């Protein structure tokens, strides 16, 4: 059933029923990202059975990549429909079954810039889970400055041959495909000589090494790419058209994120209040102030999400304001991590028993949130985007800073 034919209320009722039939107790309380990170493709997980059942049900109901066009296996969901789905899942604590970067980042670029042939070839495999993607944008030495990508792509017959290094690649070790940026025309101006290419990861000259973060996890990888090959038909947006395709990728997480992101923070804050109560810290005036501050922030995210939905519902688009969203949640979460640590005092110093550098959820929030203000565009880059593109302040004068 497509978007036009179904009212939001009908959809809500359909989803409620579907959830009631397909709820997996093992998955309750996990968020989308945790499921994607920890269970998808990990048969050793004790929750893998539940995952497979939920995956099957989600595929059957068209609830995998439901915001994609129906002709490529989606359900044409708009942001409003996505919000309904997120709300109903959150109501029972179930995650949504997602396809990670393939769904969130690469798919939208293919949909926007790919040929019909490319759409037909790549999109269904993302939905089915046959292809699992990672994003090869960042490079050592390039940081937030995508335009200075130095990985080279050389056309060789009907193939493109890629050599270079990528870093900060989330879950590359789990992926079989990478969408990456490479420089195919070194003589063209910075933004013009870049291409967006889908490259198979296996047996293709790509060596993956995991980057262990300060939180002790392997959330990121680094890849040494030595002559990896892809058919020219894997170039999205044409040779030299990579910048535009990449911008779509970066811009494609908007409305739904803004409208639903507060849900996970509400849960987290409830949990932190419980923890404070358990430690008998709720009568400390500073703790009350800090938690109430966090409550205000989450409430504001909820309200902002509703404003974004209203804008979308009336046909508006969310533009560079997306940078506000990223800044708000990443800075909020950084501060929440600190509040959680300070509130627990000495208890924050002790990690759970276990191999390696195991951390509890508050230590993870404290440590991983530092990365959140850096990856996907540092807070500094977001502020510049806001100042220049939302407020219209003039670009910087300095040589390289002109974008």
């Amino acid at each position, binding site marked *: 059933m497509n978007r036009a034919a179904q009212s939001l209320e009908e959809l809500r009722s359909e989803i409620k029923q579907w959830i009631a039939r397909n709820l997996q107790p093992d998955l309750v309380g996990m968020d989308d990202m945790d499921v994607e990170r920890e269970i998808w493709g990990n048969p050793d997980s004790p929750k893998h059975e539940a995952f497979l059942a939920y995956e099957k049900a989600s595929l059957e109901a068209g609830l995998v990549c439901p915001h994609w066009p129906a002709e490529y296996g989606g359900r044409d969901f708009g942001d409003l429909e996505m919000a309904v789905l997120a709300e109903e899942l959150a109501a029972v604590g179930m995650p949504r079954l997602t396809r990670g970067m393939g769904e969130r980042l690469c798919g939208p670029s293919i949909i926007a810039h790919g040929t019909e042939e490319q759409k037909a070839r790549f999109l269904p495999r993302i939905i089915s889970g046959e292809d699992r993607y990672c994003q090869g944008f960042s490079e050592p030495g390039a940081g937030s400055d995508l335009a200075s990508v130095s990985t080279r792509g050389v056309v060789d017959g009907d193939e493109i041959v890629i050599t270079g290094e990528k870093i900060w690649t989330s879950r590359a070790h789990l992926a079989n495909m990478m969408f990456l940026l490479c420089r195919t025309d070194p003589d063209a101006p910075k933004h013009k000589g870049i291409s967006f290419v889908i490259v198979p990861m296996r047996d293709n000259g790509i060596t993956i090494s995991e980057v262990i973060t300060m939180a002790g996890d392997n959330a990121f990888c680094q890849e040494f790419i030595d002559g990896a090959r892809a058919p020219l038909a894997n170039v999205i947006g044409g040779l030299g058209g990579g910048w535009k395709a990449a911008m779509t990728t970066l811009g494609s997480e908007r409305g739904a994120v803004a409208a639903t992101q507060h849900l996970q923070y509400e849960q987290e804050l409830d949990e932190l*209040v419980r923890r*404070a*109560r358990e430690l*008998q*810290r*709720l*009568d400390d*005036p500073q703790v*009350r*102030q800090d*938690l*109430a*501050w966090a*409550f*205000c*922030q989450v*409430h*504001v995210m*909820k*309200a*902002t999400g*509703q*404003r974004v*939905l*209203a*804008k979308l*519902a*009336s046909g508006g688009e969310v533009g560079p*304001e997306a940078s*506000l969203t990223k*800044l*708000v949640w990443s800075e909020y979460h950084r501060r929440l991590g600190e509040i959680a640590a300070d509130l627990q005092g000495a208890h924050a110093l002790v990690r759970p028993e276990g191999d390696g550098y195991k951390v509890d959820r508050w230590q993870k929030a404290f440590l991983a949130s530092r990365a959140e203000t850096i990856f996907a565009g540092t807070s*500094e880059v*977001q*502020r*510049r985007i*806001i*100042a*220049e593109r*939302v*407020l*219209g*302040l*003039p*670009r*910087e*004068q300095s040589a390289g800073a002109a974008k």
Partner: protein
Amino acid sequence: MTLSYTAEHEELRGSVRRLLAEQAGSAQLRQLIDSPEPYDASLWKTMAQELGLHGMAIPEEYSGSGYGFLEQAVVMEEMGRAVHRSPYFSTVILAATALQLADQEDARARWLPGIASGETVGTVALAEADGDWTAPRVATRARAGDGGYRLHGTKHFVTDGAAADLIIVLADSDDGELLLAVDAQDPGVTVADVPVLDQTRPLATITFDGAAGTVLTAGARTREVLAGLLDTALAALAAEQVGGAGRALEMAVEYAKIREQFGAAIGSFQAIKFKAADMLLQLEAARSAALYAARAVAEDAADRTVAAAVAKAVCSEGYFAIAAESIQIHGGIGFTWEHDAHLYFKRAKASELLFGNAGVHRERLARQLGWTA
């Protein structure tokens, strides 16, 4: 759930903005501040009678137009934008809301039509010497006697007290706490205007020495009505703060685009950009919080008290931070009397402290949410 003002609201906003730009610009405001007049009576009449701003949330039976709080929030936002000086908040938000929340048909019939028409100025006197509006310790006494209650005591920090015809007073009595309506003309009422930090919102000290009061609420209803009144006041102030903050940011951005230093517009410097970006972040947060609270009050939603407290906390801190940074971006000119930046800065601090600052409301939230050890 979606959240926005409607096209009709935006139309209303446009009318109010135009009127205030024409008749209550910076020059007129400064003239008013230097004059003995508490407000511009002619503009006040125009707002009430031509635009119908005063009666918007008053039922039609009392000569209002029966809209609701969202419309008032739009007006408050525009008044904040213009750092407008008039007893609108005291009269239309405080006094009219108190009358409507209370259950005295007589009092409503007596005062609401005058408020709607712009003939009556009202205010509510809650705080005493300790300056607490949210949980005032009430020393003012209402003594029962012949023909009703007589009031004794002093109320402080009463907004627009000197302009008011009607003063709604919170007092203690042998029958518990009461809200009473007092006619400012009563010989038992002495109003002393006090010099204020923020000259765009007058405050007065009001002494009652045997003034007659008409009971509006008694018993448990008093605290209930006060709670509803507080939510409304907070949501209204939050909207006003958003308006002021928006204008203060606009002024800073406009200035940063044209002002040159070291050979370039200062707006091209990273430090100014980042400041401006953070100001916008705070403004948008304030806008979301205020709009959410306005809807919650308009719809009498279950979370209205929480929403109003969040809005006052977020908008108070946001407005002050934005107004302060706006001065900093303006540099030297920004702290002159002649420039408008200080009007916003003082209003920001004053409206932050009025009805409790962010810390006060965060503590209220913690209690509201049941965060006890």
